[in-house]
């Protein structure tokens, strides 16, 4: 769905894992941007109706891009820069206490 404007111009230097699958991203990408560029069409389902949600505002306001990052749930993917070795999990419904 999304394509980088300058595809190939920068090294995909960061290697991370999304739901167990290895994904590469650029230094400076947010987790949300990396997920969209990797073709992931939703990052969570909502706690009430289980409707799928994807990153929307990309500026920290809408809270639609919540994911589990390195074991901590409900993090805003659009506000967290990618890091080598990061483990991302998409969320189903409510966050689990203690994660």
């Amino acid at each position, binding site marked *: 769905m999304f394509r980088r404007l300058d595809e190939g111009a920068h090294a995909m230097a960061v290697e991370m894992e999304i739901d167990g699958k290895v994904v590469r991203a650029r230094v400076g990408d947010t987790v949300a941007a990396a997920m969209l560029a990797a073709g992931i069409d939703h990052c969570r389902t909502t706690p009430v109706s289980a409707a799928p949600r994807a990153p929307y505002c990309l500026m920290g306001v809408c809270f639609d891009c919540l994911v589990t990052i390195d074991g*901590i749930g409900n993090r805003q993917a659009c506000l967290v820069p990618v890091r080598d070795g990061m483990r991302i999990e998409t969320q189903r419904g409510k966050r689990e206490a203690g994660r």
Partner: protein
Amino acid sequence: MKAKNLEESGQPRADYDVAVVGGGLVGAATAWGLSREGCRVALLDEGDRAVRASRGNFALVWVQSKGLGLAAYAGWTVRSSEAWSGFAAALKDETGLDVCFQRPGGFHLALSERELEARANTLRRLHNQPGIVDYKTEILDHGQVAKMLPGIGREVIGASYCPLDGHVNSLRLFRALHAAIHARGVRYLPSHRVESIEREGGEFRLATTQGEVRAGRVALAAGNANMRLAPMVGLAAPMKPERGQIVVTERLRPFLHYPVVTLRQTDEGTVMIGDSKEESVDPAGLTLGVSATEAERAVRQFPLLANVNVVRTWSAIRVMTQDGFPIYDESETHPGAFVLCCHSGVTLAANHALTVAPMIARGALDKTVLSPFSARRFDVQAAG
């Protein structure tokens, strides 16, 4: 039983059989109960900016600890706890709204030996009172508590557990009561702050910011504002408002299957943390240190909450009588005027709807049930 309306008794017909003053949980539950008895009811309320405990409360239907100093209050509370599931079912029948009443029993957690001992002492003193109803509260040790609440921290030394405790979605209760009274034809009059009440020619005339309302009887259910209203009809409502603060987390998967007196997981998944008391009555204020203390204790009780996000905090003013016990009274100088005041508008909602409202519809409080709650007890204390 149908209330006899005033026309039949040969007196001039007022606009309503009963004017209930106060559109919060106590007033709405009373209005609903009155309409079930066949009364024509007006529910007079302030506007959206009213200081309204019904929108800020913690939503427990709580028994343990109630009644130290007034044994009858324990019995009154147990009566409402027992009536609650039928009350919730009736509201669901009428409105389709599920207020999510659950009564799995509830905990009061202790974080030190001293706290647990204080708790056990309180319960012993409570149970040693003459005429007390036994509500089966037990003291449990860490291991026994951990079997029911697997998430507790090591610092939880023990707890008291009462099988009659429960909780509800109190905002939905508020909505369901208003939906039910609307469907029953109760006239809801918002922005009708009552300025004065006169009894004239066998009826009450309530002067409000939007004109006069006439009714055969009047039931004051205005929370702390009963302090101002009760003397207008020869009654007393000595109140001592206090502020409480609540911290609310993001929605979490169900992990807590019992309410704790200071912490509960709602049917929607959020965790509410509360139970602070401050004498300040500024409803808009919030003391950050109080929220911090509440959160710190919550994490010691349930360490898995440590990295959970807080999404809201709020403060609200508790309705509180001067001795903490309810007041139910009828006026001798102004026959037909009643006052209802209590802290526990959620816990006692079933009693207000199913027991007190039918008494008001019949025209007299049943002394065998409600005499312990007359405000005359304050006169006795003052004399002593």
